[in-house]
């Protein structure tokens, strides 16, 4: 009988080993996958048991914080600047997050692996665990100017502003209009949350859309920066002073359509030849339409790509909707694509990137929104190191383009001459206006576009602005960019 008993003992041992292995698998290896199940109430409530980290601007203005709520979720999210920062911060509701709240969720809620050691030390020392703080690259003065300008000066037209530090790619301002107040979504009352969410989703103004990075418009004449870059690169002997073909009317091949300049005006002195600088400052469509046909669509496409267009992977950390250059099927449409029409589309961020690349000697820095992540003990967890996205053009070409953009604002015939240094407290701005026709039959008002950087001699800020249906770029978009520049430079 003892032999049988020993065998039974072995069977018992096997049973217990199976149990031990299984609980090890369950509690050692399956915890993450089980915590991620959608109906796991424990994991859901656990998110709210710790104070979520703050989101602050680079100049230490708190734009998102968690305060004691006194209910089972312990903390409630508050956005002191509401709609102004909504495109940046996004929201953190009971059920979901967006924008920075989403992309930096794991550091904000403290679950990120980079915080594990600090959390463990907090556990041992009995300190209340807290999420890490996220410091944005946003400058509160530039952001405030951008938001106020969008809210007040456009008459409620949708649009967006992005400002970038050309030397690093740090995003200094990112405002979108219309916006929403994320505070309405932080309620802990499920019914109220659903109602607020539904109201925002049904709002015809689509306030949840971040137009700065997730909506595109035709770039209009601002695309002439790309066309000129391609021309100057492919013709190394040419300079801004080189004469280029600039007819009053450009007959397009294989069509009866004739391309004219704005209001049919004459480019230069009407001789059909004018300086590149002059054609750029006056924004002659015939010059650049012809230039685009000569260069060819593939060349324009490759230069558009060098400036960051056609990228489906750009993240700031939010995924940016691609700005596209589509190779046209005919020469005639290539002419339109060279002046920012046809199927060219850009985000306001892309507009800022055009100017930023020229301002930084042709070197385009990757735009980013998070400067650093700081743990609750104020130690730095992560710091963003600026990276080069591409060398869009050579420094020489960038310098030529800089001169041309300077002429747009500073020379008497420039389209944005109203904002010359004399008018703007001595700030020397270089830029390019765009007035984009939209829709198949050019219905509705033109979209106003402006890209610029300042100060010309020592670029510190590049701004892109698009106002939907704003009309002329110089009259609707440029004033907003100028206000942002002045606020940022402290003038």
């Amino acid at each position, binding site marked *: *009988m003892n032999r*049988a008993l020993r065998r039974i003992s072995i069977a018992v041992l096997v049973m*217990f080993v199976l149990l031990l292995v299984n*609980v*090890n698998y369950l509690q050692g290896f*399956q915890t993450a996958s089980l915590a991620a*199940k959608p109906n796991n109430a424990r994991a859901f409530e656990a998110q709210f048991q710790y104070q979520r980290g703050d989101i602050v601007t680079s100049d230490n203005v708190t734009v998102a914080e968690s305060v004691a709520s006194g209910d089972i979720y312990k903390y409630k999210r508050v956005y002191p600047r509401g709609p102004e920062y909504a495109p940046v911060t996004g929201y953190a509701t009971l059920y979901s997050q967006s924008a920075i709240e989403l992309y930096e969720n794991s550091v904000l809620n403290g679950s990120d692996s980079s915080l594990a050691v600090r959390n463990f030390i907090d556990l041992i020392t009995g300190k209340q665990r807290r999420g890490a703080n996220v410091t944005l690259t946003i400058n509160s003065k530039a952001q405030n100017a951008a938001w106020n300008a969008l809210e007040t000066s456009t008459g409620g037209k949708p649009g967006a502003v992005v400002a970038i530090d050309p030397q690093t790619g740090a995003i200094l301002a990112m405002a979108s209009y219309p916006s929403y107040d994320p505070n309405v979504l932080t309620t802990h009352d499920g019914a109220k949350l659903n109602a607020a969410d539904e109201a925002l989703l049904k709002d015809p103004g689509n306030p949840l859309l971040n137009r700065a990075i997730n909506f595109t418009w035709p770039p209009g004449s601002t695309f002439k920066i790309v066309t000129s870059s391609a021309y100057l690169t492919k013709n190394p002997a040419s300079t801004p002073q080189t004469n280029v073909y600039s007819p009053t009317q450009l007959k397009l091949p294989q069509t009866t359509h004739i391309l004219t300049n704005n209001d049919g005006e004459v480019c230069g002195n009407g001789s059909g030849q004018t300086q590149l600088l002059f054609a750029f400052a006056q924004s002659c469509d015939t010059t650049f339409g012809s230039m685009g046909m000569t260069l060819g669509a593939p060349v324009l496409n490759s230069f558009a790509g060098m400036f960051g267009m056609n990228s489906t992977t750009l993240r700031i950390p939010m995924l940016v909707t691609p700005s596209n250059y589509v190779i046209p099927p005919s020469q005639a449409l290539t002419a339109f694509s060279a002046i920012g029409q046809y199927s060219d589309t850009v985000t306001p961020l892309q507009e800022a990137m055009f100017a930023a690349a020229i301002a930084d000697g042709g070197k385009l820095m990757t735009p980013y929104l998070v400067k650093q992540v700081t743990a609750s003990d104020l130690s730095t967890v992560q710091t963003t190191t600026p990276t080069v996205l591409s060398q869009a053009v050579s420094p020489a070409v960038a310098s030529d383009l800089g001169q041309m953009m300077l002429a747009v604002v500073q020379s008497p015939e420039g389209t944005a001459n109203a904002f010359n240094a004399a008018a703007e407290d001595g700030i020397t701005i270089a830029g390019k206006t765009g007035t984009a026709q939209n829709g198949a039959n050019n219905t509705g008002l033109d979209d106003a576009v402006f890209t610029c950087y300042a100060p010309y001699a020592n670029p510190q800020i590049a701004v892109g602005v698009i106002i939907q249906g704003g009309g002329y770029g110089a009259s609707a978009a440029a004033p907003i960019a100028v206000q942002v520049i002045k606020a940022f430079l402290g003038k």
Partner: protein
Amino acid sequence: MSSITAPTPAVDPDHPPVPVRRGRRGTELTMLAFAFALVLFAFANVGYSLNGRLPSGLAEYMAGFVVVVLIAHLAMRRWAPWADPLLLPLAATLNGLGIVMTYRLAAQGNLLSAPLSPSATGIQILYTAIGVACFVAVLVLIREPRVLQRYTYTLGAIGLLLLALPALLPSSISEVYGAKIQIRLGTFTIQPEEFAKLALAVSFAGYLVAKRDVLALAGRRVLGIDLPRARDLGPILVVWAASLLLLVFESDIGTSAVFMGLFVAMLYIATSRTSWLLLGFVMFVAGAFAAAKLFGHVGERFNIWLHPFTGLNPSHNAYQLVQGLYGMASGGLLGKGLGGGQPYITPLVQSDLVVTAFGEELGLAGLMAILIIYGLIVQRGLQAATSVKDPFSKLLAGGLSFMLALQVFVIVGGVTRLIPLTGITTPFLSQGGSSLVASWILIAILVRVSETARRPPPRPIQDEGLTQVVTLR
């Protein structure tokens, strides 16, 4: 006679004393001190975690628990001095942790799951007292495990009656969550199957010991398997089939699985024939398959086991299992700490799923410790079975130890999704009286068998030829 029966300390230089095996009751007391400290610490932990101070009633609860367990210890000093010193401390630790968990679940709940009644902790300690009273009664009444063999048929009949009782009674008295397994007397309920298990185990042991030779030797060989004669196997087969049928009728699959395993294991221990294990396994698989096809609630258990995460809503049948898994997952390696988790989210966590509550609050580390405590109890029981000489005691201790192991395997394996979840109680840890009392009786029988095994042989006090006078204490 008194001068003869009294222990004689005098040392005869010609006959040095046989090395005396010590009773190890002092060791037991030391181990009990650890058990008490552990339970006290756990209690304090709950209070500090929930309210930031020592729990109210800590002194009363601890005093009650300690006194009851010390009575068990003193009873062992008096009536089972040679018994295994580990069984009582191990059982007391588990019982204490069960009381602490009851207290913890009574102290906190949420909107969906109300906390247990505030009196639950006191009642659980009362059940402990009743359990220990039965423990002491077994030690006092059964001085030799052999005497139980006399009641083979009586206990078999009692076991069957206890099993049948809830099925015969009206549902209003016997039904609980779809299973007819209890008898309700006012506010108290008794689950007779817990006691039926013990009675039938004793009955099986008595019958198999009497018939083991004929079962092993007489009979025909069919397909390489030695089949016993029908008249030898008949009675036991009837008991087994009847119990299974009753359990299926009462919708209590977990217990029927434990019965089946107990039966096969004892048959194997008695006859040492591997063919029995094979036969038992085949019958079990076939039976389970047939049951899954025939009875909706059995098939559903399999479905829940295989697809627990489909249909995620509170009314779905897998909700309890899934919440238990979530609880254990949230505990992770070191747990949330007693009072730090949310075990109350899991429905009825205090009974069948109590292991998940420990997994959530004590973590993988604590749960493994609990499993190892069970493993040690089973190991001490099997050790007693191996070393005891009398075949009946051997079979009884072996069978009961295996039954305890199987019960832990079925419930812990069930809640951790190793096997389909079938609701049975977790020995010592689940809230409720019947299981706790029955577990204490089981431990008492193991203690008695181990005492018999470890008791030193009678020592001669006179050495005068063939006739010896021995001391029987």
